[in-house]
């Protein structure tokens, strides 16, 4: 029987997924393992990280790390094999009106959402952990370009990582390493409950989406598989909206 055509296979690739203990990162880690990759998962919460690992087929590795801590980045990078894919998914949500934004609010969001992924990337490059023709994916957000009340700091953090990723794509292109971003609209994870919204509120809001629902973590994972696979070898410096048709959040 002829082999089924599958340009999206991740067989033979080693992929690092950050923020893999919950939500979108967890779904991506599981999907990558199911597509044949060897996956290294990292997150702050060891118990939840182990739970992710238990759902992944194959020979995978979990490394506990708080990526806002320099020593944790160093320890993670030292423990890593060389990588064919990196998914920078770790991040936090925040809803604070502009009138109330404090220095602490900015640090709480910009450190995990911008500074940590940038410094992890620096460490990965300096330690030569990224193979030629690898694929790097940042989970940004539609929030960068779709304003919503209370979302100023979060939106800015995602705008910052989008701009960073486009520069990184240029710098890594000579080694055929690709860098792309996924910009999801609202996805059902704990992150969207920031700012006091309830599940009931959100179920009402999701009806405004043309496809009548918010995203599932698996929706993002499927696009991520495409970006990590050899099916996307001509794509770099792109930011892909994944929104259920919504123009606003």
């Amino acid at each position, binding site marked *: 029987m002829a082999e089924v055509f599958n340009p999206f296979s991740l067989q033979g690739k080693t992929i690092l997924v950050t923020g893999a203990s919950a939500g979108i990162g967890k779904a991506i880690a599981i999907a990558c393992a199911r597509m044949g990759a060897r996956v290294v998962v990292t997150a702050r919460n060891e118990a939840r990280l182990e739970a992710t690992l238990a759902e992944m087929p194959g020979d995978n590795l979990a490394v506990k790390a708080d990526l806002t801590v320099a020593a944790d980045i160093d320890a993670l990078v030292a423990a890593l094999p060389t990588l064919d894919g990196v998914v920078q998914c770790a991040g936090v949500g925040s*809803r*604070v*009106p502009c*009138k*109330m934004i*404090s220095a*602490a*609010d900015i640090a709480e969001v910009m450190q995990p959402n911008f500074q940590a992924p940038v410094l992890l990337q620096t460490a990965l490059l300096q330690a030569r952990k990224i193979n030629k023709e690898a694929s790097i994916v940042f989970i940004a957000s539609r929030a960068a370009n779709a304003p919503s*009340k*209370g979302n100023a700091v979060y939106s800015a953090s995602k705008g910052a990582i989008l701009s960073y990723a486009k520069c990184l794509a240029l710098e890594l292109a000579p080694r055929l390493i690709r860098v792309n971003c996924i910009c999801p609209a609202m996805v059902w994870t704990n992150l969207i409950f920031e*700012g*006091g*919204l*309830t599940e009931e*509120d959100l179920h009402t809001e999701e009806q405004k989406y043309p496809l009548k629902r918010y995203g599932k973590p698996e929706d993002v994972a499927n696009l991520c598989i495409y970006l990590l696979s050899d099916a996307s070898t001509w794509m770099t410096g792109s930011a892909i909206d994944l929104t259920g048709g919504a123009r606003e959040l």
Partner: protein
Amino acid sequence: MELNEFIANFANQFDDTDASEITASTAFHDLDEWSSLTGMGVIAMAKTVYGKTITGAEIRSCDTVENLFNLISNK
């Protein structure tokens, strides 16, 4: 946590509503200027000034400013 100080902090969330309109018994949901954004401001104020985490649903369950004060002080 002191009620009068809380009322002043709560009144601070409003730009066009005079502080004199806001007392312990004010049904704040009925204020013209009350909105989801003001609610987010109250959540942020509870966190930064009092170190307490409250939700939108909890704010909705309160009728008066004093109810809100009790909610936050009992956290």
